[in-house]
């Protein structure tokens, strides 16, 4: 077998494995969603991440309120910008009705409210607002 042919085989195998990983992960998530209401179209899953989701991950931890508590999304950047609680509620998987498009925030929402998550969030919002007041909003 030529090197080129072998390399193509390895790449093809990697692509197949990657596709299986994505498909399994997505179907697991799909199964975790509540069944759609009968007679209604299946709602779209809202995607994205709050604010600087990328840097949620990349810059978030330790940049703001969430630092010590395990890293809260774009907490640091939240604090930097005078955002109100609305975007956050749309942004963290809490289906409060604020659409990501309206708030400009990517939503991490599933299609149903999650009261447990919301309970956790409220403490965070309070901290976040405090940060927004005491930090340096542009």
């Amino acid at each position, binding site marked *: 077998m030529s090197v*080129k042919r072998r390399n193509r085989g390895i790449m093809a195998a990697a692509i197949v494995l990657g596709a299986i990983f994505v498909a399994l992960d997505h179907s697991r998530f799909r199964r975790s969603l509540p069944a759609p209401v009968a007679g209604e179209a299946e709602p779209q899953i809202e995607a994205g991440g709050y604010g600087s989701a*990328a840097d949620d991950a990349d810059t978030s931890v330790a940049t703001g309120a969430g630092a010590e508590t395990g890293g809260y999304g774009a907490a640091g950047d939240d604090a930097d910008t005078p955002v109100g609680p609305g975007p956050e509620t749309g942004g963290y998987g809490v289906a409060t009705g604020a659409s990501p498009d309206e708030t400009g925030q990517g939503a991490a929402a599933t299609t149903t409210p999650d009261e447990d998550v919301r309970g956790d969030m409220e403490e965070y919002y309070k901290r976040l607002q405090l940060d927004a007041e005491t930090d340096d909003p542009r």
Partner: protein
Amino acid sequence: MTLLALLAVSLFLQDEFQTRQSLLFLIGAGLGVTLLHATFGFAGGWRRLIRERRSTSARAQILLLGLTSMLFFPVLGQLFSGINAQAAVAPVGLSVLIGAFIFGIGMQLGGGCGSGTLFTVGGGHVAMLVTLLFFVIGATVASAHLHWWLALPSFGKLSLISALGWGPALLAQGLCLIALYAVVLAVERQRHGNVEPLFAAKTADNGFTDRLILGPWPLLWGVIGLAVFNLLTLLIAGHPWSITFAFGLWGAKIWSAIGGDAASWPYWSSGYPAVALSRSVLADNISIMDFGLILGAALAAALAGKFAPEDRIKRERLVASIIGGLLLGYGARLAFGCNIGALLAGIGSGSMHGWLWLLAGFIGSVVGVRLRVRMHLDPPPR
């Protein structure tokens, strides 16, 4: 076939999620095409500067930083109302210093940076697949340790835009970038007595349209393409282009799938990381853009007839890919991102952590270049 796959995934995302998710996937593909056709890599450019004192790629990177700043600062400075875009501002601390230094070593041993690893994987380079695999492992392990690293001393967040306003901040940063450009230019001229032209075409024997589709592109096209796609990311996703968060996410998901409990680690137990871990990987902006980037690069490589080149992987190369990948992943997590999420997005956002990343990452690269010689990956410099 790659084009069909791109379209199919894009349509699926549109149907399953939102238009935005589909657009971000296509932007990722555009970035992949740009990176591959322009062969725009940070690791190789830095290595060439360190070993040969040739600065073509380094100058293109400085131009990219400048153009990105020009596009980002007015948006992030809220010149335009109604655009809600978040800057990539992170603390200037020991975790960035150490993480970027480690990343700098890793990018030389692994043979690619964050973007470089993805687009070369898309191009079918098997050695880079090994680097990517260990990049993911390194990022995952680092996410388990991150709370410890983040407890190290830090100056906090330092944003030029917050401190000066976007106009003066852009002027100040522009002057710094011009000074940096002059330094690398002087380094090259001192060694060689001349300077390689930055905007020269790599080949000039085909027309504009052919080159646009089939490549190769001059570096300037790469600079413009990357800056414009990054701006589109900022406007559509609400945050600058980023890469490596997704690697830790994939690793944590795989770890959980095989029985581990990544969700209990501090990093993955709250906030966006927790949400991302619980949702579909396709709901994560960064993962989607990474997938698009790989497929876009694969498309470009196929168009150029370069997919899966005839690389025979030597043992030294394999060992370097493993070590390099681990260092890349671990370093990126500590430093709040890679050369894209921390260096380009950080400097483009006026955050001082981006400048610290640049300094520490370059010093790490100097060490990495020396290690490459010791590991017989490169001949000793002349």
